[in-house]
C-alpha cells in the first residue's frame, strides 16, 4: 500500500508555475537540517515541492514531532485501571463513577504571549478548550499557570496584566469557570513569560470520540471560522514568492474569537452525541496540515483534500498558506457522505458553516490538491513517523551544581518575625485575588470550592461526587535539583488536591524548558521527567497527556525549568470537601508531617537572605502517599474543618494563610499556637520557613480530635497538636524560647494588597517598555 503510494507520489506531484525552486537555503528557512531533508528525499524518492516542504517543516517541527522529547516521554507511566485514553489523543481521559469520565489536558502558549500577551493567552485558552471538547467532553473548568519576571519592571507588569485579561475574556465568554491556577514571578522569566492553560471536561464514557479518520470515501469537512493568513510562523518568508507582498498583510498575531468558540463547542458536542460524525479534530498548531495528516495516520488511511475548497478570509490564498494557517476556532470533521446535510443543518443552527474539502482514501497517501492541481502527495504514515528522533547530550550545568553546594547566604534583610510579612508581600506567595476576580469562577453553577483554596473543587452534575483540580510547579526546586524538583511538582499538586479531601487520580503536564540542544537544559528536562515519572508511579497517578515547550530562552539565557503539573482528583462525596482556612474559634490546630528544617531552595533564603541555592529537601514519596490517603479518609469521616498544605514559605506561610482566611470573610480569625515540642532539634528559621513536603496545617472541632489522632496514627502520618483557633486578633506562636505575635489584620492587608498595589497602571506599563 505504502509502496504504491510512493510510486504514485513520485509521479503525480508537480511544482507550481513560478514556485520557488528548492535550494539548500529554502530548506534551511524551513528549519529542516540535512539529515531531515535527506529523509524527505528518500521517503518521497524525489525532490519535494515547496508546499510539501512546508508540510514537512510543520509536522517535523519540535512542536508537532516531539523529536527531542519522545524517548524521554516514553518513560512516563501511562496505564492504570481508570485510564480510558492515554497520551496521543487531543486530551487524556480517566474513568469516573456512574458512567462518567473526565477529559483533561494542559498546553503552553508562551511565545505568542511574549509578543502579544492578551491575544496569546486568549488563544491559548481557546486551543485547550477545543482539545477537550473534541473528545466529546463538555469543558467544566479552566486553570492557568503563569510565569513572569518581577513586577518591579513595567514590561513584566504589562505582560502579566495582558495575559490575565486574555485568559479571563476568553474563558468568561465561552462560559467555563476558571477554578484555579498559579502565578509566579522570578527573574528567569523576564523576556520569556510562560502561559500554560489547562482545561477539564466531563463526558459520558460512551460518548468518547477519538480523532481517527475511518471509512474510505468518507468526507472531510471544515467547520467554523474562515481561514486567514494567521500565524504562518517560521515558514512564512518561504512562501513570499507564492503570494507577493502577502507578507506585509500576514499578521503574526492570531486573534481569538470566543463567541465563535462557544458556537463551535455547542455544535461539536451536538454532532458527537447525535452520532452524526466519525471523527473530529481541532485545527491547532500547523492547522489543516497536522489535523488532517494525524487523523489519517491514526486511522491507517489516506486523505485527499483540495485547499481550493477551504473557505478563506482573504483573497488569493495559496495552498501553502491554507495548509499552514493557524487561524483559530476551526475544526476538521470526518463523516459519511450521507450525513453531510444533517451535519450542515446542525452547524447552521449554531450559525456555523461546514464545508466539504476532501475525503478518506485507501492508498495511505496524504494528498493535497489546489483547484484540482496536485501539490502534495506524501506517504501518510511516514510523514508522521519518519522524522528523525534525537537523543541530545545531557550534562548538568556547572552553575547549577555550584549553586546547590554553595552556601553564601546574605545577611537576612529582616528578622525571623518580619520575614513572614516580607514573604506574604511577595507576589508569588501573596493572594492571587487580583487575578481570579477577573475570571468567572462560578458560571455553570457547579463550583464547590472557588479559587483561593489549595485546589478548585467542582460538582459533577446530578451525582454526589466531584472533582478537585490544581496546577503546580516550584521551578526554584527544579533548577537546583531537576529530579527532586520533578517529584516535588507532582507531590505538591497531589497535596493540594488531597487537602480538599480528594483522591488524586492522574496528571497532565506541560514541560517548559530552554533549548534542548544545550546539554545542561536537556539534563534538566530528562531528570525532571524522571522525577515526575517516579512520583506518578508511587502515587498511582498515570500521565494521561501533556505538552512540551522547548526553546524558552531570552537574551539572559534559558528560563528556570518549569514542568507544570495539572492534577485531577476525585471527591467521592463532594459535600465532604475541605477548605484551606480555619473555620471557627476554639477549633484544635494540628500540624501533619515532619520538618527537617532544610532551607535549600526555600523562598526564605531566596527573598530574605538573597540566596537561591542549597540542597532542597528530598521528596519522600511514601510519606506523601500516606499523607494523601490519610486526608481522603479524614474527609470521608468528616473529621476536618480545614486543611492547608505547606508549600512556598513553609509552615509559617501556611499558618498565616489559614488564619487570614478567604477574601470574603468579614474578618480574620486568630490562633494561639505552641510548636516547642514539634521539632525540638530544628533551628527556628528552618522550622518556620523550611519547605519539606507531606505537611499540612489542619483544624478540627474539639470532639473530633481523638478520632483524628487515631486515624493519623493508623495511616502512619505524624500529627502534632499545635494549639487552638482564636476568635480574632493575632497569630501567637511560641517555639521554645522564641515568642512571635503577628496581627492577623495586618497580615491580611499585606497578603491581599501585595499584587493590587503593584498593578496600579497597566496601560502606562506597556508604554514604559522595559
Amino acid at each position: 500500500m505504502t509502496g504504491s503510494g510512493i510510486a504514485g507520489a513520485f509521479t503525480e506531484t508537480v511544482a507550481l508555475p513560478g514556485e520557488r525552486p528548492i535550494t539548500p537555503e529554502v530548506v534551511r528557512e524551513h528549519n529542516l537540517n540535512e539529515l531531515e531533508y535527506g529523509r524527505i528525499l528518500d521517503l518521497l524518492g524525489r525532490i519535494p515541492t515547496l508546499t510539501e516542504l512546508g508540510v514537512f517543516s510543520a509536522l517535523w517541527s519540535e512542536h508537532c514531532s516531539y523529536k527531542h522529547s519522545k524517548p524521554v516521554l516514553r518513560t512516563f507511566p501511562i496505564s492504570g485501571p481508570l485510564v480510558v485514553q492515554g497520551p496521543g489523543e487531543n486530551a487524556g481521559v480517566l474513568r469516573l463513577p456512574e458512567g462518567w469520565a473526565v477529559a483533561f489536558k494542559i498546553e503552553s502558549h508562551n511565545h505568542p504571549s511574549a509578543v502579544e500577551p492578551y491575544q496569546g493567552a486568549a488563544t491559548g485558552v481557546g486551543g485547550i478548550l477545543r482539545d477537550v471538547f473534541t473528545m466529546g467532553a463538555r469543558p467544566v473548568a479552566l486553570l492557568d499557570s503563569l510565569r513572569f519576571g518581577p513586577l518591579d519592571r513595567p514590561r513584566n507588569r504589562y505582560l502579566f496584566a495582558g495575559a490575565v485579561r486574555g485568559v479571563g475574556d476568553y474563558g468568561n465568554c465561552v462560559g467555563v469557570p476558571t477554578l484555579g491556577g498559579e502565578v509566579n514571578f522570578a527573574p528567569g522569566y523576564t523576556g520569556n513569560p510562560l502561559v500554560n492553560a489547562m482545561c477539564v471536561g466531563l463526558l459520558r464514557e460512551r460518548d468518547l470520540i477519538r480523532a481517527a479518520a475511518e471509512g474510505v470515501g468518507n468526507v472531510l469537512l471544515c467547520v467554523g471560522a474562515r481561514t486567514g493568513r494567521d500565524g504562518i510562523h517560521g515558514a512564512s518568508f518561504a512562501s513570499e514568492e507564492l503570494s507577493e507582498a502577502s507578507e506585509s498583510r500576514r499578521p503574526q498575531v492570531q486573534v481569538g474569537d470566543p463567541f465563535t468558540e462557544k458556537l463551535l463547542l455547542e455544535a461539536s458536542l451536538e454532532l458527537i452525541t447525535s452520532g452524526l460524525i466519525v471523527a473530529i479534530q481541532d485545527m491547532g498548531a500547523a492547522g489543516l496540515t497536522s489535523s488532517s495528516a494525524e487523523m489519517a495516520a491514526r486511522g491507517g488511511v489516506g486523505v485527499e483534500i483540495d485547499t481550493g475548497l477551504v473557505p478563506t478570509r482573504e483573497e488569493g490564498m495559496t495552498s501553502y498558506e491554507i495548509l499552514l494557517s493557524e487561524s483559530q476556532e476551526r475544526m476538521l470533521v470526518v463523516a459519511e457522505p450521507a450525513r453531510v446535510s444533517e451535519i450542515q443543518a446542525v452547524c447552521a443552527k449554531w450559525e456555523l458553516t461546514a464545508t466539504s474539502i476532501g475525503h478518506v482514501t485507501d492508498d495511505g497517501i496524504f494528498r493535497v490538491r489546489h483547484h484540482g492541481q496536485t501539490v502534495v502527495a506524501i506517504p501518510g504514515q511516514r510523514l508522521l513517523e519518519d522524522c528523525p528522533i534525537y537523543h541530545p547530550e545531557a550534562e548538568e550545568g556547572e552553575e547549577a551544581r555550584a549553586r546547590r553546594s554553595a552556601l553564601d547566604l546574605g545577611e537576612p534583610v529582616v528578622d525571623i518575625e518580619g520575614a513572614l510579612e516580607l514573604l506574604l508581600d511577595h507576589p508569588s506567595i501573596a493572594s492571587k485575588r487580583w487575578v481570579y476576580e477577573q475570571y468567572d469562577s462560578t458560571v455553570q453553577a457547579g463550583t464547590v470550592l472557588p479559587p483561593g483554596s489549595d485546589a478548585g473543587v467542582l460538582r459533577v452534575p446530578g451525582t454526589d461526587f466531584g472533582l478537585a483540580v490544581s496546577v503546580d510547579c516550584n521551578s526554584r526546586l527544579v533548577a537546583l535539583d531537576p529530579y527532586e524538583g520533578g517529584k516535588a511538582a507532582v507531590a505538591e499538586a497531589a497535596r493540594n488536591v488531597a487537602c480538599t479531601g480528594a483522591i488524586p487520580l492522574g496528571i497532565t503536564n506541560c514541560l517548559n524548558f530552554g533549548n534542548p540542544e544545550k546539554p545542561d537544559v536537556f539534563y534538566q528536562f530528562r531528570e525532571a521527567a524522571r522525577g515526575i515519572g517516579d512520583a506518578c508511579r508511587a502515587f498511582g497517578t498515570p500521565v494521561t497527556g501533556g505538552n512540551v515547550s522547548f526553546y524558552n530562552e531570552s537574551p539572559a539565557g534559558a528560563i528556570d525549568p518549569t514542568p507544570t503539573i495539572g492534577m485531577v482528583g476525585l471527591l467521592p462525596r463532594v459535600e465532604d470537601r475541605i477548605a484551606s482556612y480555619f473555620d471557627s474559634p476554639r477549633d484544635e490546630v494540628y500540624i501533619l508531617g515532619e520538618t527537617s528544617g532544610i532551607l535549600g531552595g526555600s523562598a526564605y533564603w531566596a527573598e530574605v537572605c538573597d540566596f537561591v541555592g542549597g540542597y532542597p529537601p528530598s521528596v519522600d514519596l511514601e510519606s506523601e502517599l500516606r499523607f494523601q490517603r490519610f486526608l481522603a479518609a479524614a474527609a470521608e469521616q468528616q473529621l476536618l474543618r480545614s486543611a492547608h498544605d505547606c508549600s512556598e514559605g513553609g509552615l509559617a506561610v501556611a499558618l498565616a494563610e489559614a488564619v487570614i482566611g478567604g477574601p470574603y470573610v468579614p474578618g480574620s480569625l486568630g490562633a494561639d499556637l505552641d510548636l516547642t515540642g514539634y521539632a525540638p532539634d530544628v533551628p527556628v528559621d528552618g522550622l518556620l520557613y523550611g519547605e519539606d513536603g507531606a505537611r499540612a496545617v489542619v483544624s478540627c472541632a474539639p470532639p473530633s480530635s481523638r478520632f483524628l489522632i487515631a486515624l493519623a496514627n493508623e495511616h502512619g502520618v505524624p500529627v502534632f497538636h499545635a494549639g487552638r483557633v482564636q476568635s480574632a486578633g493575632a497569630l501567637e506562636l511560641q517555639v521554645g524560647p522564641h515568642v512571635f505575635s503577628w496581627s492577623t489584620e495586618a497580615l491580611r492587608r499585606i497578603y491581599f494588597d501585595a499584587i493590587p498595589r503593584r498593578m496600579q497602571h497597566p496601560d502606562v506599563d506597556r508604554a514604559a517598555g522595559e
Partner: protein
Amino acid sequence: MTRVAVVRFPGSNCDFDTLRAAERYGAEAYFVWHRDVDLRGADVVILPGGFSYGDYLRSGAIARFSPVMQAVKQHAAGGGPLLGICNGFQILCEAHLLPGALMRNAGLTFVSKPVDVTVERTDTVFTADYETDSRLRLPVAHGEGRFVAAPDTLRMLESEGRVVLRYVAATERSPFQPNPNGSANHIAGICNAEGNIVGIMPHPERAADRLLGLTGGSGFFTSLMAWHQAPKMGVQSR
C-alpha cells in the same frame, strides 16, 4: 405548575444553570431558541446570563433583534413576568424594556465575586418571597455592569421605588466595596413601572444550592413558583 421559558441566544452561557435552578424549585422549565417566535405558553420568561453575540458592539445590542424578542415583548406587554439576569438585563435595556444602560465597569476589568445586595422591592413576581430590605449574598460576574441613566430617569426610578436590588455599602468589617462596578446609586437591579419586568446584574441561579455555599438566590425561584397567586401589581391572568 409554573411554565418557565429560558431563552437561549447564541452565546448565552447561564442557560443551563438557570433552567436547573428553576427546575430544582419545581418549575416546568424549558429552553426557547432565539429564532423561535413562540414561547409555548410560558407563564414566566427568563433571559439568562452570558455573552450573547459575544457582547460585540455593546452587550445585548445585537441579541435585542433576535426573532424571539417580538414574542418576549408581547408576553411582557400582557403583564407576563419577565426576568433578565446579567446579560439578560443588558438585553432588556438595549430593547428599551427597561430604562438606562449597562456600561463598562468603572474599574475597567471584569469582576467576579460575591456581593451583598438588599432587596428593596418584594412585590414583584421574582422577589415576593423576600422580606423587604433583606440582605442577600449573590455572585456577580460581568465586565459591563455599571448602570447609568439620565438624571431624571434615575430620579423617577427612585421616586417610583423601582430599584429592586441595591449593592450594600461596605460596612466597617465587610470585605465588599459599596458597589463592584460603579453603578449609579449602587443600583444592582430595577423593574418597569408595572413591576412585571425585572433586570438584575447578580446571579441568583448560582446561589440557590447549599452545596455551592450561597443560597440567597433561591427566593427568586420560590417566588416565581407562586406567580399566579401573588404580586399585587403587574401580572394579569392570561
